[in-house]
């Protein structure tokens, strides 16, 4: 190669650099991004960017290890470095579905740009020329046919191997997945688009299909497009279909779950089609990180709650994504990885490590034991001695629903009678559907009855046995309220009609009398004249 052509190549390389590329290799000690990083990022990502900060061991996925320069969310081809804009985007908006928050509001433009440069300085790979984003076209118009095609291609490309037939991350390969640091990693639950790591616009999803998510098992499909195994348009269809599996907007969280009054029978079971007509309320759950053993890596991050009553009994349906029906031997490998990857979190005098055997999946409903108002609700995490809670537990083991009293985190004293809760559940395609039913009134006066027209506090807890959960390990909600609606009485419809009729009748009388009086007066006047 002549020196001239070498220079030309070098020039060409420079020309492909994005304008304003941020220098990677400033001396870290004096880098302007260092103080920002040390203050805001190092606690998770580690002083030297190896993803090994103090908080890291409890997190799955682990905080990014910048020393290997492997970035999930990119606009560049599989295995390529990210662009500066790619890194900045993640700093700005965070990584949904993980512990990484967005920093656009906290840090100035200058600080965030400095951070990009500093992160790059952790890996010599950034000495390479900056890669160019892959070029992508416009999203084609959607519609029902597009979604049907997307579903067909989703199956053809065997996306279900990891993401499951219905997209809930319950594919047959899901229990075996690990990231590049050999930590267990979930196949994304495609029905919760608000947890998509790289955003949930159709174009975001399409980009993930084209670029893959480096460091994870998710591959790039660009080669498959190049090899004409799938067309670019079909890949867009898959993205549109995947997006359609989630609600258009992230579910709004509402404090009060209303149980409508229904005429006729309550739904017969969790799969009863009558439930499809009942309003569903989304309750977000988070890992139980208050009492030891704390749990930072829960499987379940939300539950959909529906309720109806018929004046005598109330039926609730609870639905949540869980890729395993625990215990399931196929998930033993997963539990082994969780045990290896999550440190024990011992309480005083206890050596609490993640159990070696899978327990069942378990749902717990929690109510105050005694009537209460907002200012005196029991402690949200299992109540206290002074203000106990009434606990209702359903588990996948097939045992009957249990009721008990809780007087603190993790406590459960079985009740002989209880409030008459009964129910059952079924698991299909990565989702539990559980129906629990009880009489509104209770015979045991120490337990709370439910009265139409009165809201009662309720909280939720879930455990996924195959994830090593059970006891205090699992996910919990704070207090919400359940409100059995008062039926609209017949008089509400009759009274306005009666009132209108009465008013009209009265009007006729009044006007009639006035007219008669007027006529009488005229007669008198004419007689006088």
């Amino acid at each position, binding site marked *: 190669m002549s020196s001239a052509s070498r220079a030309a190549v070098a020039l060409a390389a420079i020309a492909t650099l994005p304008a304003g590329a941020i220098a990677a290799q400033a001396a870290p000690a004096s880098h302007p991004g260092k103080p920002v990083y040390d203050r805001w990022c190092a606690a998770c990502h580690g002083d030297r960017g190896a993803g090994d900060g103090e908080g890291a061991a409890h997190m799955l996925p682990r905080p990014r290890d910048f020393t290997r320069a492997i970035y999930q969310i990119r606009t560049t081809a599989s295995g390529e470095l990210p662009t500066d804009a790619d890194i900045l985007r993640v700093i700005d908006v965070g990584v949904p579905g993980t512990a990484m928050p967005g920093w656009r509001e906290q840090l100035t433009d200058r600080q965030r740009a400095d951070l990009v440069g500093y992160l790059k300085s952790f890996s010599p790979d950034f000495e390479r020329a900056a890669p160019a984003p892959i070029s992508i076209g416009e999203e084609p118009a959607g519609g029902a046919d597009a979604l049907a095609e997307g579903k067909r291609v989703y199956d053809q490309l065997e996306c279900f191997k990891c993401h499951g037939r219905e997209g809930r991350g319950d594919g047959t390969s899901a229990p075996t997945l690990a990231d590049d640091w050999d930590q267990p990693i979930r196949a994304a639950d495609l029905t919760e688009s608000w947890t998509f790591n790289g955003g949930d616009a159709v174009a975001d999803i399409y980009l993930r299909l084209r670029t893959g998510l480096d460091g994870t098992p998710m591959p790039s499909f*660009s080669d498959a497009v190049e090899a004409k195994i799938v067309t670019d348009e079909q890949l867009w269809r898959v993205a549109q279909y995947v997006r359609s599996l989630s609600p258009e907007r992230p579910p709004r969280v509402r404090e009060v779950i209303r149980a409508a009054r229904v005429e006729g029978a309550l739904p017969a079971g969790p799969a009863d089609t009558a439930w499809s007509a009942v309003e569903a309320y989304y309750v977000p759950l988070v890992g139980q990180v208050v009492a030891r053993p704390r749990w930072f890596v829960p499987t379940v991050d939300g539950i959909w709650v529906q309720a109806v009553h018929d004046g005598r009994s109330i039926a609730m349906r609870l639905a949540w994504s869980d890729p395993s029906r625990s215990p399931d031997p196929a998930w033993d490998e997963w539990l082994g990885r969780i045990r290896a990857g999550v440190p024990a979190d011992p309480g005083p005098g206890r050596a609490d490590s993640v159990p070696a055997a899978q327990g069942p999946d378990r749902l717990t409903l929690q109510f105050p034991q005694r009537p209460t108002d907002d200012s005196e609700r029991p402690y949200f995490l299992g109540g206290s001695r002074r203000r106990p809670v009434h606990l209702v537990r359903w588990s996948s083991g097939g045992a009957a629903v249990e009721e008990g009293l809780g007087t603190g985190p993790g406590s459960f004293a079985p009740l002989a009678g209880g409030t008459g809760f009964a129910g059952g559940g079924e698991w299909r395609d990565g989702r539990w559907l559980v129906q629990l039913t009880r009489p509104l009134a209770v015979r045991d006066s120490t337990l709370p009855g439910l009265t139409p027209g009165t809201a009662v506090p309720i909280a939720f807890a879930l455990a996924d046995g195959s994830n090593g959960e059970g006891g205090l390990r699992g996910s919990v909600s704070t207090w919400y309220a359940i409100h059995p609606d008062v039926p609209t009485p017949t008089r509400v419809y009759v009274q306005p009609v009666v009132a209108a009729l009465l008013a009209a009748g009265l009007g006729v009388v009044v006007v009639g009398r006035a007219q008669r009086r007027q006529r009488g007066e005229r007669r008198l006047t004419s007689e006088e004249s």
Partner: protein
Amino acid sequence: MKRALLSGILVIGAAGVVAACGGGDGGEAASGDAPAAGAPASDAPAAAPLGSGTITGTISFTGTPPQNPTIDMAEEPDCKAKHASAPVDPQVVVANGKLANAIVYVKSGLPAGAAVPAATTPVVLDQDGCLYEPRALAVMTGQPIEIRNSDPVLHNIKAVPKVNRGFNVSQPSQGMKTTRSFDKAETMVPLECSVHGWMHANVAVLEHPYHAVSGPDGTFSITGLPAGTYEVEAWHEKLGTRTAQVTVPEAGSATADLSFAASGS
């Protein structure tokens, strides 16, 4: 594709094919970097083999080889059907005391600054019956690896290197071919399939062509060496490494027989 091309250009530069290049590949985008780190100096004119010496040998295994784990392929009947008996993961393959799938390569001793010819012939890595074939391979930096899917099921081929950049490519269709290469020396680059967690292969990426993989009879042969004294290493995914020092006379041959043993023996 672009990656392979870039690497190819780098290797051509590394091999110092100054005269032959003649701008044939010029005009293509290139990184503008210096030749791959650690590559032999680029100003040596030679592109021919450095010599005609040979190292041959046999990799043996003494003791009882470990049992290879069976694989539950119930979820992939199309792959399962390709196996006459219950599929096993062939981690340690021993026949008559001879070990297959050991990667043998010259670890040190090449003349400093020697310009070695680039390797442009693709090495094929197949996915057949939901197993890699071969499961151990050695390539030169920049040498294309043609990855084939001979199964009617989804595979993804994922490289998890420490030095090179990785990749993770979906191959959703039987017959699909993907070509990739690595531009830096690295022993070893693990390859894996996320869909089928049991699938593993390893690639040795070297800056020279003096490498081989032991066959079913344990033998290997490394050719084209100049006279000299070399450290030869045999690497096996489960058994670790063995090294030997050999002296190759001008246009002659040397023998490097290496032996692994069952753990504990």
